[in-house]
C-alpha cells in the first residue's frame, strides 16, 4: 500500500485466481473501486513479482496498512493470500478453497458463506464470521476458520458445515439457525448461544452468561476436543425449534460446556 484511500477501497480482484498468469504490470492494471470511482491496483499499491500459471501456484502477499480495504481474497478457490496487517470487511467472503492468513484483525463478514479452504486470523474477528449472506439459508458449508483472538457476534449464523475455532471470547449469538458444522470457543461466551439451532455442535471451554431456555441438560460427557480429553456438561436443543429426523431418530443440536 503506497497511497491509502480517502474513503474505503474495494479490492475484490486481490486473490490468487485474479492474479494467476499475470505479471506485475498486468496485476497493477486490475480494477479497484473507491466509492463511485474506479481505478487500478497500481494507483494504491506497489506491485512486484509474478503470479504462477494457476491460482494454486500463486501466493499473494499484501503489505502495509489495509485496514480500509474490503473484499480481500473474495471468492478465491486456491493458492495463498497473506495479509501482514489488518483488513476490513468481507475478507475471504465466498471463498471455496486455498489459504488466507491475516496477521492482524479482520472486520465483519469474513468468510461469508465459505465453502472450503482455510482462513487463519491472528488477531480478532468482527461480527458475522463464517455466516450466511442476508436472506440466504446457506451459510458456511465447508473449510476451517481459526481465530487466535476474540470474535464478534453472530459467528456461524446459518452454518451448514465446516469448523470454526476461536481461542478467545465471543459476543452474543453463535450458530443461530445452523443445521450443521462445529464452533469451538476456548474462551468465554455471553448469551443467545445456539438460538433456533436445528443441528450442529457448539463447544465452550469458558463461561456462558445466560443459557437459552431451549437447551435441555443432558448429563456430563467426556469429549476429546483438538487432541485434549475433558469432561463437558451436555445440553441438547434448540427444543423450541423444528426438529429434523435422521434414520427415524430426532436430531438435536449439541452444546457442550467444560465442566
Amino acid at each position, binding site marked *: 500500500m503506497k497511497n491509502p484511500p480517502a474513503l474505503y477501497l474495494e479490492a475484490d480482484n486481490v486473490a490468487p485466481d485474479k492474479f494467476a498468469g499475470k505479471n506485475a504490470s498486468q496485476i497493477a492494471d486490475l480494477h479497484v473501486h473507491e466509492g463511485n470511482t474506479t481505478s487500478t491496483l497500481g494507483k494504491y499499491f506497489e506491485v512486484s513479482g509474478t503470479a504462477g500459471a494457476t491460482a494454486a501456484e500463486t501466493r499473494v502477499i499484501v503489505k502495509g496498512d489495509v485496514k480500509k480495504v474490503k473484499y480481500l481474497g473474495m471468492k478465491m478457490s486456491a493458492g495463498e493470500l497473506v495479509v501482514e496487517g489488518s483488513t476490513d470487511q468481507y475478507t475471504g467472503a465466498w471463498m471455496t478453497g486455498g489459504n488466507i492468513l491475516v496477521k492482524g484483525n479482520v472486520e465483519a463478514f469474513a468468510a461469508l458463506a465459505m465453502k472450503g479452504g482455510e482462513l487463519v486470523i491472528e488477531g480478532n474477528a468482527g461480527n458475522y464470521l463464517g455466516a450466511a*449472506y*442476508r*436472506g*440466504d*439459508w446457506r451459510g458456511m458449508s465447508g473449510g476451517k476458520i481459526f481465530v487466535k483472538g476474540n470474535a464478534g457476534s453472530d459467528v456461524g449464523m446459518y452454518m451448514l458445515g465446516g469448523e470454526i475455532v476461536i481461542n478467545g471470547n465471543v459476543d452474543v449469538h453463535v450458530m443461530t439457525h445452523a443445521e450443521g458444522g462445529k464452533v469451538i470457543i476456548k474462551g468465554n461466551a455471553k448469551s443467545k448461544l445456539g438460538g433456533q439451532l436445528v443441528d450442529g455442535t457448539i463447544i465452550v471451554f469458558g463461561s456462558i452468561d445466560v443459557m437459552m431456555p431451549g437447551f435441555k441438560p443432558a448429563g456430563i460427557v467426556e469429549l476429546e476436543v483438538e487432541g485434549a480429553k475433558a469432561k463437558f456438561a451436555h445440553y441438547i436443543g434448540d427444543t423450541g425449534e*423444528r426438529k429434523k429426523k435422521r434414520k427415524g431418530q430426532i436430531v438435536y443440536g449439541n452444546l457442550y460446556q467444560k465442566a
Partner: protein
Amino acid sequence: MAEYIIKNGHVFDPVQGIKGDKADVAIKDGKIVAKAGSGAKVIDAKGKTVMAGGVEIHAHIAGPKVNVGRIYRPEDKLFTYTPTKGNQRMGGGNSIPTTFKTGYLYAKMGYTTAMEAAMPPLFSRHVHEEIRDTPIIDEGAYPVLGNNWFVMEYIKNNEVENTAAYIAWLLRATKGYAIKSVNPGGTEAWAWGLNCLSIHDPVPYFDITPAEITKGLIEANEFLGLPHSLHIHPNNLGNPGNYTTTLDTLKLAEGYKAKNKFGREQVMHLTHTQFHSYGGDNWANFESKAKEVMDYVNKAKNITIDTGNVTLDETTTMTADGPFEHHLTELNHLKWANVDVELETAAGVVPYIYSPTISVCAIQWAIGLELALMAKDPMRCFITTDHPNAGPFTRYPRVIKWLMSAKAREIQINAFKHKDKVLSQSSIGTQDREISLYELAQMTRAGPAKALGLSNMIGGLKPGMDADVVVYDFSPDKPVANPDQIEAAFSKAAHVFKSGVEVVTNGEIVNNGNKRTIWVNAKVKENPQVMRDINEKFLKYYSVSQANYESLGHHFIPNPYAIEVDATQ
C-alpha cells in the same frame, strides 16, 4: 414516427395463416401497414424469423407479493446485477427481477405484452405503480375474485346481475383487466387456517362451494361480455392425485358459451395446468396425468389453458393460494411470507429449488412439456412458466428449445438422476412431436391474444394491428445442428418493435418505448342495491374508506388504454 420495412424475413403469422413464407412487414405510425413509404427504414431479415410480439397471458411481475419476494430475497440478487447504461436503469434479481429489469428482459426475448396474473383489489395502487415502472411492455392486471365476500354472497343468492355489477365497479376502481379466481373458497377458508381441496368442500361460514363460485363467475363474465374469460387457478394445486379436481373444475364450463364482441371463444382459462395434472397418492408414486387432462381439454372447445413449465431452477413461488404456500413451507422449511387481505384474498411466498436430482421435480418438468406436446389445438394451449412459480419467465427460450427439439429433451432426460422414474411416471420419453415455428407463434402470440380478446390488436401482423414485431436470428430452412441455437436465438431478438418503436436491436435495449396500462371499462345498468352493499361493507368491515379505495389517479397510470364494454343491454 419513423417508418420501417422488414424485408425478406420468414414470416410466421397465424392471424393471416402465413407459415414461414418470405414476406415484407411494413410499419407506420405505430401500426402494421400494407405498404411503407419510400422513406421507410429497411431492416434486412433475410434468413431470419419474423413474428408478432410475444403475449404473456399469466405471470406474477407486479404487485405486493412479487415485491415481498424481491424484498425478502436479497440472496436472489447476489451477483445478478446489470448496471445503469445510458437511458437504461440498473436492474437485478434472478427469479424476481426489479421492475426495470423485468421490462427489459421481456423485450429482449421479443415479448411486448404481459398480464399480471393476480392483483389483490385492495392493493391495486401498488400493482399499478410497479406496472408504471416496468418499461416497454404493455401490461394489464387480473383482480382476484374467487374468495371475495361480495362475490360469494351474491352468487350464493344466485344474483348474477349483482355479481356482474359489483365486478364492473371493481374493474373500474382497480383498473383491472379480467376476472381471476385462485383456489375458489379455499383462500377464504385459509383465513381460519383451513382449505377447500375439492370443488364441493363448503367454504366456512359463507356456506357456498368452489363449484358454485366458479359457475357464478363464468356467468357474470359472460353477462358482462368481458374480453377475457374467467381465468382460474383451481383447488388442490400441487398435490398428488389432484388431476381429478382439475377435471371436475374443467367440467364446470360445460354448457357455457362465450358471449362477447372480441372474438374470444373460451369461457374458462385454466392456468399453470402442470401444477394440476398430478396422479398418484403420495410423493413416492407421484405420476403424470397430462394425458387425462389433455384428452379432456382437446375435446372441450370452450376451454383454453397455459402450461406452467418447470424450468429446473431455484426460484420463488408466490400465489394467492395461501394454504398451498403454508403446505409448501412445511415441506421445504424455507422462509414463508403470507398476507391475508380483508374481504378479498390472500397470498403466500416461499422460495423453491426445482432440482434435477429430485425425481418429483423431474417429473413436473416432464408434465409441463407433455401438456404442450399433447395439445391438438395450439390456439388453445399457451406456454408459460407461471413466472416465477415453475421457473423465471427468462427461461422461455429454454422451454421453446425443449418443445422444438426432441433431441434437447433427450439430453435433459439423460441428465436426470432418476431418469428411469421420469420415464416410468410420465410419457415424455415417447413424445416425438417437435413444435413448429408456426405452432410456436400460435402458442405464444395469436393464441393468448385471442384468449385475451385482443386478437384485433396484438398477436399478429395483419395491417391495422399494433406494430409489435420481432425478428429472431433463426433460419427456418437451415437444420438445427445444436438445439442450444434455438435457445440463443429466442433469448436475444435481433429486432423488436413495440407500437412501431424499435426498442431492441441485436439483443440490446435501445429505447424505453411507450408502455401502456390496459384495463377494461365495463358499463352496466345503474344498480343502487350493489352500490348500497359496497357502501355498507366499507363502513363496517374494510380498513380504508370507499373514497380512498376508489382513488387511483394519473400518477399511478400515466398512459392508460381502456377497452370499453357495454353490458347495459
